[in-house]
């Protein structure tokens, strides 16, 4: 027989802590509330201690981690609110609804700050799609779910990433990111302050959805989880659209003291978090909560994760005003309780008190906090054993190229992003398919650039350096689009933290992100942790997803990756080294996932990034593109594609041909420059001591690459394009 506290996912010492807080045994309601709140998902008990490694302040930071979303200043009295959130386990069980409700949840976090949501991104990881129908089913459902929710609610899905790797065979990852815009003086927080103020509930009725979903989200998936399938929540984007409009209108009236979405752990978390941030206490009556089903128990009402619900803390006496606005939007608002200052969260059922706990004790501030043991995993040393001499050079590079283009990691993702309305609201200036999405900010000259990035193979081979690269790569994508990176949100997806080698990955990664964010001056303003992403067989590769925002002072000066005109000169910035460890080439062509990952030198990185941004701003560049998976060869091809323009490339080198083409050395970009401006660009490069190579010219309708006088690649763009665009579509049937 398992102990009651074990059933809600707690351990003996945690139970003892509850006894201390209450000075008595908890009843079932209370125990479940502690269970969900002290899960990893809500309490960050394994991760909080590590967050000190993150830089979270800066002159642009208006709101750092700790609220529903972070906010950074972009000038003109405007801020950008953003956050990323995982919905991995729900998506593994019911891909459509799991992904849809992930999107719905993250949108609520944004408008709960008072910001208007303007863009969505998504970062996806799946297993081996070429081998598994199950993976196809998951991808299909997840993409439809994201599309179903985002399209209906009318927020454009402007970017994201997807990649495939055996480590996700048992655990797909679905992380959704939302970005909003807000005026500085309109920022709202989840504070329950002002004794006597009313707690009002708005939105969908409460049902038995996602029962135990929060603690469920923190245990390893086993065969048993099949039985917990009723944990599926269903999203209602139409309801949420009304909620957005109603809440943003309400926030204008000044009647709202605090606002909080109901996410993981539902009412329980909304109550204790707002109480803790505010006056300290709250009293609510579960009988007042609108319900979808008859006969619900207080505990079911308190931990239900029904979607599309919000809690408002309303200034006493102004409830009618709130009700009126909410009803105009076809929704209902009811008073479910009030703010107190006795520090207790009191749950009543009518007149009867059914739960009474110190509010803060449920919240992260009262939850346990762990410093775990860690140890370097066994694989870590082994995988480093690699040198490029071990592998044979391909005989036919045209063939190798085609094989690379067919890799689902390299192939065009348009099968995905064409299912997303990425244009609604007519602010999307650079659409999916370039390095970062660019949106204009109406009423200003400004734009913002958005991206998500993470190469999890790197993070597996070297969590700390790989995580640094994730941040640097995100920054490069922003820079290549003409934006100045200003902040990140991080989605940390890892395995079981109770295993010391997993915890080591987690810790190393956080340290790496912190270091990179300090170097690149992009503070962490929000984030999400998802642990236990493993099955009996296997843990996922460490996957710290970096969502980054940048500002363009003049949105007209955005830049895209595609070559623009015949005759433009193609220049490679940075240095190519023998760094094919951990590369897509090594994995795809040679079936190896090993080696030292490329070395990231921040001094060079910053120099190159600064150069690219300045030359874009000075309108010297026709196109810019960072080099990532697949190296120079793939970056060149991506430049050729959109306008079906070829290129003639000529390289002299001492390196192996496959290394030149596919090495993933860091801090590199490909830029194209009008012939008349090449001198100016070269002068600047020389002056700033940036290594560069003149690669060739945009020309014709084929890509030709000659290395040391030998033509190794000659492919019509049309053929390249058909392969690259068709690969994912073809896989999906």
């Amino acid at each position: 027989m398992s102990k009651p506290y074990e059933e809600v996912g707690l351990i003996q010492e945690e139970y003892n802590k509850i006894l201390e807080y209450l000075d008595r045994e908890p009843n079932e309601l209370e125990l479940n509330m502690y269970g969900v709140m002290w899960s990893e998902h809500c309490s960050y008990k394994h991760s909080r201690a590590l967050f000190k490694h993150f830089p979270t302040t800066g002159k642009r930071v208006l709101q750092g981690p700790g609220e529903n979303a972070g906010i950074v200043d972009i000038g003109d009295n405007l801020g950008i609110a953003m956050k990323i959130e995982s919905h991995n386990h729900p998506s593994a069980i019911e891909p459509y609804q799991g992904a849809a409700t992930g999107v719905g949840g993250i949108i609520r976090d944004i408008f709960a700050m008072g910001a208007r949501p303007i863009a969505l991104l998504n970062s996806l990881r799946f297993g081996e799609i070429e081998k598994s129908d199950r993976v196809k089913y998951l991808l299909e459902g997840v993409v439809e779910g994201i599309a179903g929710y985002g399209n209906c609610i009318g927020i454009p899905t402007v970017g994201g990433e997807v990649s495939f790797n055996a480590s996700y065979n048992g655990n797909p990852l679905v992380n959704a990111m939302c970005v909003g815009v807000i005026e500085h003086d309109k920022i709202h927080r989840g504070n329950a302050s002002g004794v006597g103020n009313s707690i009002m509930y708005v939105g969908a009725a409460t049902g038995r959805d996602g029962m135990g979903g929060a603690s469920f989200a923190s245990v390893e998936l086993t065969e048993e989880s099949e039985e917990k399938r009723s944990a599926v929540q269903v999203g209602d984007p139409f309801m949420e659209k009304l909620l957005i409009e109603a809440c943003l209108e309400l926030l204008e009236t000044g009647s709202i003291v605090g606002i909080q979405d109901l996410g993981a752990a539902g009412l329980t978390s909304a109550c204790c978090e707002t109480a803790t941030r505010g006056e300290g206490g709250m009293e609510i009556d579960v009988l007042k909560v609108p319900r979808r089903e008859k006969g619900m128990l207080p505990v079911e009402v308190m931990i239900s994760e029904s979607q599309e619900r919000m809690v408002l803390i309303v200034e006493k006496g102004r409830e009618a005003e709130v009700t009126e606005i909410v009803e105009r939007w076809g929704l209902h608002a009811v008073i479910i309780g009030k703010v107190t200052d006795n520090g207790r969260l009191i749950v009543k059922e009518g007149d009867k008190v059914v739960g009474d706990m110190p509010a803060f004790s449920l919240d992260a501030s009262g939850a346990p906090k762990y410093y775990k043991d860690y140890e370097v995993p066994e694989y870590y040393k082994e995988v480093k054993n690699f040198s490029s001499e071990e592998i044979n050079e391909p005989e036919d590079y045209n063939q190798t190229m085609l094989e690379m283009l067919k890799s689902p990691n390299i192939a065009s993702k348009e099968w995905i992003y064409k299912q997303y309305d990425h244009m609604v609201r007519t602010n999307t200036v650079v659409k999916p398919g370039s390095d970062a999405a660019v949106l204009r900010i109406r009423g200003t000259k400004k734009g913002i650039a958005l991206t998500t990035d993470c190469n999890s193979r790197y993070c597996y081979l070297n969590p700390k350096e790989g995580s640094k690269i994730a941040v640097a790569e995100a920054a490069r994508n922003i820079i290549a689009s003409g934006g100045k990176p200003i902040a990140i949100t991080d989605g940390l997806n890892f395995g079981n933290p109770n295993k010391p080698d997993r915890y080591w990955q987690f810790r190393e990664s956080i340290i790496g992100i912190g270091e990179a964010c300090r170097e690149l001056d992009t503070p962490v303003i929000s984030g999400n942790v998802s642990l236990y992403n493993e099955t009996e067989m296997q843990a996922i590769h460490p996957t710290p997803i970096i969502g980054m925002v940048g500002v363009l002072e003049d949105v007209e000066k955005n830049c895209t990756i595609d070559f623009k005109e015949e005759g433009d000169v193609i220049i490679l910035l940075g240095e190519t080294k023998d760094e094919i460890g951990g590369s897509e080439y090594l994995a795809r062509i040679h079936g190896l996932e090993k080696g030292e990952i490329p070395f990231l030198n921040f001094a060079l990185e910053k120099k190159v990034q600064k150069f690219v941004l300045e030359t874009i701003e000075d309108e010297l560049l026709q196109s810019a593109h960072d080099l990532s998976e697949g190296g120079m060869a793939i970056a060149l091809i991506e430049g050729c594609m959109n306008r079906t323009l070829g290129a003639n490339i000529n390289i002299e080198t001492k390196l192996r041909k496959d290394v030149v083409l596919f090495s993933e050395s860091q801090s590199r970009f490909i830029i194209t420059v009008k012939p008349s401006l090449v001198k100016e660009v070269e002068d600047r490069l020389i002056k700033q001591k940036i290594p560069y190579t003149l690669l060739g010219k945009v020309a014709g309708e084929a890509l030709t690459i000659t290395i040391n006088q030998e033509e190794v690649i000659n492919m019509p763009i049309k053929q390249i394009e058909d392969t690259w665009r068709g690969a994912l579509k073809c896989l999906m049937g």
Partner: protein
Amino acid sequence: MKVKVYVTLKKSIADPQGTAIQGALKKIGYPIVEEVRIGKLIELQLGEISVESAQQQVKEMCEKLLANTVIEDYSFELID
């Protein structure tokens, strides 16, 4: 043989679509409608097959593809 498969959302699963349609029916003059649930009606035309075999195969199809048993229930009838 013709088969009608009925796929409905499980009772415990929210049906926002049904709720919205109930609201719409109310608005256009049918307050008598207290609840709406929206499901699927899937009509299959089968080739030559015995009743037992049809029974069994249709059940399998429902479990595997036609219904998502995580959130849906199903039933079916053979028609001839």
